[in-house]
């Protein structure tokens, strides 16, 4: 696992790396005192997100975990304003998302890719048309550029041979990788992932996680992933925040060692610590066995 503080370049696939990006230590996503409440059918209000402040460093793979109803999905959706926060401010890069007008928001959303648990592909469109969708709606690009970019993105997720298929002909893992290609097509700075592997079996989950890791490493895209699967966090994330009752209860590096690991306050945090200890022991055992053999 990489060190959480590694500064990752922000190079997009076909572009040469931007000179200022390599030295950048700015946050890719920053939330300042963000709250969101929902009105329930019975007239009461439910505070889904309570005064959360959070910073996701550039180039990180950041996990957001919590039990269902903890507010993690809502928090994710506040970032690209699929839900509008009641109060607080959201920044993506240098841009204050919460201050944008409707049209500016639509433009800003190009730099925030999003993938979903249910993939949400157009069923009646080919894989090509699905990946081309975000390019065509902001159509400053000519059709030749669209064609090249779609091929690039499908190549990146390893599905170039499915370019003319329809989603119904693909497996769950392949659909999610098409969705990743679609999210990457407009060269986003951040990738928001809402339970991306929760509808997949363990085999296809691995292929999707490999793709996400690859995307992060090769393109420097910051990945924020909401999940309830601790295995996903262990396999993919560098930093993780645990949400409880609409608040961020704690935040730590996934490969954290030493006394801090023993002082986790949340059940999920302790569970992750246990898994880390178990993996350490396993490693030691394997090394011992190898030495003895």
């Amino acid at each position, binding site marked *: 696992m990489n060190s959480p503080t590694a500064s990752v370049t922000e190079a997009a696939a076909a572009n040469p790396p931007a000179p200022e990006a390599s030295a950048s230590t700015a946050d890719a996503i920053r939330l300042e005192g963000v709250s969101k409440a929902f009105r329930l059918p019975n007239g009461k209000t439910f505070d889904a997100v309570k005064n959360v402040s959070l910073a996701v460093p550039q180039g990180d793979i950041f996990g957001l975990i919590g039990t269902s109803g903890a507010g993690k999905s809502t928090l994710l959706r506040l970032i690209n304003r*699929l839900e509008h926060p009641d109060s607080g401010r959201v920044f993506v890069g240098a841009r204050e998302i919460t201050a944008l007008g409707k049209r500016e928001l639509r433009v800003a959303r190009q730099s925030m890719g999003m993938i*979903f648990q249910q993939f949400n592909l*157009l069923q009646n469109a080919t894989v090509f048309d699905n990946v081309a*969708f975000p390019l065509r709606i902001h159509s400053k690009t000519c059709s030749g550029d669209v064609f090249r970019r779609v091929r690039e993105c499908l190549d990146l997720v390893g599905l170039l041979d499915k370019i003319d298929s329809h989603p119904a002909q693909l497996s769950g893992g392949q659909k999610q990788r098409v969705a990743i290609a679609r999210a990457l097509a407009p060269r986003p700075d951040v990738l928001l992932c809402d339970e991306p592997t929760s509808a997949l079996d363990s085999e296809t989950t691995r292929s999707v996680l490999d793709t996400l890791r690859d995307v992060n490493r090769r393109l420097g895209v910051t990945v924020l992933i909401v999940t309830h699967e601790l295995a996903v966090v262990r396999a993919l994330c560098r930093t993780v925040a645990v949400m409880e009752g609409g608040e961020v209860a704690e935040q730590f590096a996934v490969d954290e060692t030493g006394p801090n690991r023993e002082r986790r306050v949340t059940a999920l945090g302790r569970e992750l610590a246990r898994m880390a200890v178990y993996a350490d022991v396993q490693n030691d055992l394997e090394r011992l066995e190898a030495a003895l053999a």
Partner: protein
Amino acid sequence: MSPNIIAILPELWTAIGQTLLMLGIGLAAAVLLGGPLGVLLFLLGPGQSLERPALFGVINWLVNTVRSFPFIILLVALVPFTRLIAGTSIGPVAAAVPLSLAAIPYFARLVEQTLRDVPRGVIEAAHAMGASEWQIVRRVLLVEARSGLVLGLTVLSISFLSYSAVAGVVGGGGIGDLAIRYGYYRFQTDVMVLTVAILIVLVQLIQFTGNGIARRLDKR
């Protein structure tokens, strides 16, 4: 061929032409005006992206009201309006006016219901990519619902084929008019059987074509 049928043959061709003309005008009005109205009804509805309860309520009420008229009453009640639009209240073009007016809310409702079957997540994904409402209509809703919309249009065509027969009552002409004037008033059973047979063939043809197109458009 019986003498009755031979006698009406020239009129039969005119009648088929009139029926197709009424149907064509009615369906065109339904698609061009009812279609957008249905999309609007969907977008303004509860939980949708342009949610406006008051406006939705008004359009919803209007659609229901027009649809609650028995067609023959609408036909008669609209005579002054028909004169204004078509210049006359007799003939297939005049009959197409009330036919269109009935078809518009009918199709609007069918469109609204079909669009509700488009998964919310797909619409949301388009929003997340920065699509405008118009782009969502054109590139998401109409694409994902297209086979359902074709089936809706098929249902509409068949309903309005029989509505156009009612239009014969006010001098609209058409196959239904022929059936009533010769088959019913003059007791020419063979003419009645022939006209019904023609309608049966038309309905089967419309349904067969609609199903075929819908199946071909559906990649889900």
